[in-house]
């Protein structure tokens, strides 16, 4: 066996202090295989060693929380009538950077397994994607387009084949992600309360089954790969990327749900990051037991694999199942029905050890709990906090506002993403009642007869300028998007994407963002059900903008409440709920028109935000609101344009926005928070405004939906107008034309 030298230890990403701790745990030197096992389990990806202390701030409990953050593979939330949802978001950033198609595909596969491992039937997915700039002819832009096309194709391939609709999400393009794209995938499943499955190895003497794809050499030590920076040499890590087979996973999904319904299962765990290693030690640790397996019994697709390779393989579509003793035949019959490879590979015992044998010889013997739960935790050094100076508007004179709206709509982050979501089957499972492209997706869960709304959000420019405020706004915006559909937020999952935590400026961003997000979650009464931390998102050019992405789920209580963002009929009145606003800092206007990320992000006032959301939701529930669309990137002008052009039939609008100065760009493009544009029937406008005033929510009648083919806005003494056909061409045509169609 390979001797353990300081060089080998360093290559495994284990520090001398960590190695000493391993020696203490074992009471001896680890062998090479054991070193590999520790290196993956103690990687950031598996142990959260650099972030766990921060994550403790998230509110994890609430009256609806049935399984809380960190307890199992995914959190579980009560949605009433005995039904519950399990949902989670996870990143596959590094694999997607080196192999976009398979990287993204296996990301989807991994998150789906996390959900059905809980006993839930996965019913929809979403994703939050970020790439470098795809405009222009540079080698970098071409690479970014290749990554974008590959990731979308990978998600489409896996999600469509397995038959789980991809119903929404977000895609942003920014230089900071060049060479280090973000691929955050979200999945939600439905289950009865009594169906919650546990990933614990319970019952001494119970047999341990392996089911699913045979183990190969793919994805070796992927968790460790994900826990370091991407470099020029990362391409050589392509073997660390797994290859996905959605057909196998579909069979595994159906077999596991059938198996869980049979009552034969004592515990179940998917083999994701760190594969067989993670699933054995985690189930043992959760069960307070030990697990012993024999590698000779593991189904393999290659010969001559060493214990090190078998244990660290991240081959996809595999599960570990602990079966109630005596029920083995029933279990075998189900696996045979679904034509899945399986084997009884071990047994649960009472000594607390993860013991891996290869026939008669012992390859690994480690106390399971110390391996799974007692990784060293670090609070890294954070840089001193510094906030951006107030924006000096004199430096950014007002640009041609007619052209600026086009400049915003042509920006790939704001342009229509139809090119993306048309490649996803979003209609399978008969649930997509609000199609992708609205503020939040709305989905009917047929099994439970419940309607859910879901949104993923993060404005990374805000987070770059002020991580705390940016993270708060990510939560607020998700809740606002949910409110715009008529839903009540329930809970959220997060995906924290940051740079190398050993750099103090990056660690500061992580800490600030987590604190901001935790505070906002408490204010919006949305506990965090779990999620994922992805650090080391750096390319040779530096760290990404901090991107703490939020995936929030809400519930619509009545189908009548479902509301979309586009205008419905000429003659309807347009009301701005919230104040006109004046904050241009960190806006997409400054980015798209002036070419800078500058100034502080808008300030979030929780009371104001909650009042606006509650008011709009309440108006929706009383049946008065025909459309609702939140103000986000590009401000009020982009919101109005989208409400005009994003429906099946385009409708014009004639609007007047109050202005505090002679500058028109401020009222048009500022990104002040807590604003929603609604349209209401003309006969309802007065009572809606009176109702809002009574609630103390600022609101103003700003215009009318018109039968014309123009968006007309008067503000700051200027009368501006845009033909809808041109706006639509800009907005809808940008991404297809960039992608060569």
């Amino acid at each position, binding site marked *: 066996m390979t001797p353990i030298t300081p060089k080998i230890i360093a290559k495994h990403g284990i520090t001398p202090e960590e190695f000493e701790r391993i020696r203490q745990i074992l009471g001896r030197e680890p062998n090479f295989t054991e070193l590999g096992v520790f290196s993956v389990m103690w990687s950031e990806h598996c142990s959260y060693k650099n972030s766990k202390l921060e994550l403790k701030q998230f509110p994890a409990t609430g009256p609806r929380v049935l399984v809380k953050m960190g307890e199992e593979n995914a959190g579980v939330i009560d949605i009433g009538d005995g039904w519950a949802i399990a949902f989670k978001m996870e990143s596959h950033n590094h694999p997607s950077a080196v192999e976009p198609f398979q990287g993204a595909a296996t990301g989807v596969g991994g998150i789906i397994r996390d959900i059905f491992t809980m006993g839930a039937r996965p019913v929809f997915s979403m994703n939050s994607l970020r790439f470098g700039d795809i405009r222009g002819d540079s080698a970098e832009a071409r690479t970014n387009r290749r990554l974008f096309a590959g990731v979308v194709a990978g998600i489409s391939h896996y999600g469509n084949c397995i038959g789980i609709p991809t119903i929404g999400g977000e895609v942003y393009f920014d230089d900071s992600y060049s060479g280090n794209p973000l691929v955050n995938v979200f999945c939600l499943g439905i289950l009865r309360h009594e169906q919650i499955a546990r990933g614990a190895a319970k019952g001494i003497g119970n047999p341990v089954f392996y089911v699913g794809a045979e183990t190969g050499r793919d994805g070796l030590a992927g968790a460790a790969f994900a826990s370091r920076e991407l470099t020029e040499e990362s391409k050589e890590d392509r073997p660390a990327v797994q290859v996905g087979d959605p057909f196998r996973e*579909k069979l595994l999904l159906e077999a596991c749900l059938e198996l869980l319904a049979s009552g034969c299962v004592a515990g179940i765990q998917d083999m994701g990051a760190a594969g067989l290693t993670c699933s054995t030690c985690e189930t043992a640790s959760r069960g307070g037991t030990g697990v012993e397996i024999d590698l000779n019994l593991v189904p393999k697709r290659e010969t001559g694999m060493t214990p090190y390779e078998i244990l660290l393989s991240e081959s996809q579509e595999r599960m570990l199942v602990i079966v109630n003793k005596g029920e083995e035949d029933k279990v075998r019959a189900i696996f045979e029905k679904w034509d899945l490879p399986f084997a009884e590979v071990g047994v649960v015992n009472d000594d607390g050890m993860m013991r891996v044998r290869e026939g008669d010889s012992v390859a690994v013997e480690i106390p399971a709990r110390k391996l799974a739960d007692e990784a060293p935790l670090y609070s890294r050094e954070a840089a001193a906090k510094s906030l951006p100076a107030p924006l000096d508007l004199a430096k950014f004179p007002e640009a041609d506002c007619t052209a600026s709206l086009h400049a915003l709509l042509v920006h790939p982050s704001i342009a229509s993403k139809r090119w993306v*979501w048309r490649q996803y089957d979003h209609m*399978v499972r008969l649930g*997509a009642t609000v199609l992708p492209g609205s503020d939040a997706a709305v989905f009917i869960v047929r099994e439970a007869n419940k309607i859910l709304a879901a949104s993923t959000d993060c404005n990374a420019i805000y987070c770059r300028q002020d991580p705390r405020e940016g993270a708060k706004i990510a939560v607020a915006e998700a809740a606002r998007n949910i409110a715009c559909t008529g839903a009540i937020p329930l809970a959220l999952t997060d995906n924290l994407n940051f740079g190398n935590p050993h750099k103090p400026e990056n660690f500061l961003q992580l800490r600030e963002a987590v604190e901001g997000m935790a505070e906002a979650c408490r204010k919006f009464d949305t506990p965090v059900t779990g999620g994922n931390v992805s650090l080391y998102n750096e390319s040779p050019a530096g760290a990404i903008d901090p991107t703490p992405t939020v995936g929030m789920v809400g519930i619509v209580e009545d189908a009548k409440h479902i509301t979309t963002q586009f205008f419905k009929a000429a003659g309807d009145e347009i009301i701005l709920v919230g104040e006109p606003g004046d904050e241009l800092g960190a806006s997409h206007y400054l980015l798209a028109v002036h070419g800078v990320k500058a100034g502080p992000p808008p300030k979030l006032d929780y009371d104001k935000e909650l009042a606006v959301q509650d008011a709009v939701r309440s108006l929706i529930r009383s049946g008065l609101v025909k459309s609702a669309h939140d103000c986000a990137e590009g401000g009020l002008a982009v919101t109005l344009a989208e409400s005009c052009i994003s429906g099946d039939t385009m409708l014009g609008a004639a609007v007047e926005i109050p202005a505090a100065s002679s500058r028109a760009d401020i009222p048009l493009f500022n990104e002040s928070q807590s604003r929603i544009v609604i349209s209401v029937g003309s006969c309802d406008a007065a009572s809606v405004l009176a109702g809002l005033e009574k609630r103390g929510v600022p609101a103003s009648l700003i215009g009318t939906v018109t039968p014309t083919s123009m968006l007309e806005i008067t503000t700051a003494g200027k009368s501006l107008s845009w033909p809808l056909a041109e706006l639509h061409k800009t907005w809808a045509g940008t991404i297809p034309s960039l992608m060569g169609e």
Partner: protein
Amino acid sequence: MKFAVLRFPGSNCDQDCVHALNAIPGTSADYVWHKDTSLAGFDAVVVPGGFSYGDYLRCGAIARFSPVMKSVKEFAGSGGTVIGICNGFQILCESGLLPGALVRNRGLHFVCKHVFLRVESSESRFTNAASAGQVLKIPIAHGEGCYFADDETLARLRADGQVLVRYCDGQGNVTDDANPNGSRENIAGIRNAAGNVFGLMPHPERACDPLLGSTDGLAIFQSILNS
């Protein structure tokens, strides 16, 4: 009327078909496993969408060899009603129950969206609840839905009135712009010469609920009930 909804490994619209059919008064639907060989007690067979056997090799190419497809051929041979949707259409073509083949979409991408279909003939088991020329709004979701047949086959399909639905615009005009996948002559669905087997790429089961934006799919299922 009792529908058998086939379940291959990799079928993923089977549950949707059962849900949509069970919601129609006068119908019931149940699953039939691909390893089963009996269709006794069923009045009609639905071959649902999905990725049967992973669609490895070629869409529908492996499913045609499954035990249940042998029974479906016998069922169709004795005049039983069979409808194949999306992957089901591909399977029926691969099995020789319908002429032609479905190949990769013209644009090379998977496409999921609502499309318009013009009913070419109402004189069939599958379209009698609609009128000729009527426009139906029904979604598609496929990567390989481009219908291909040679000139001779197309001429025969035309002459016998076997083309039941064509892709069109909202006004019923059969144009190239309205063709989402490059199908020859905008063909979206065809029946066999005997008139008891129908395959189409669009998903009628996804257009049976006003909350999903259209109920035009009901016309197809209602037609089967009528006949």
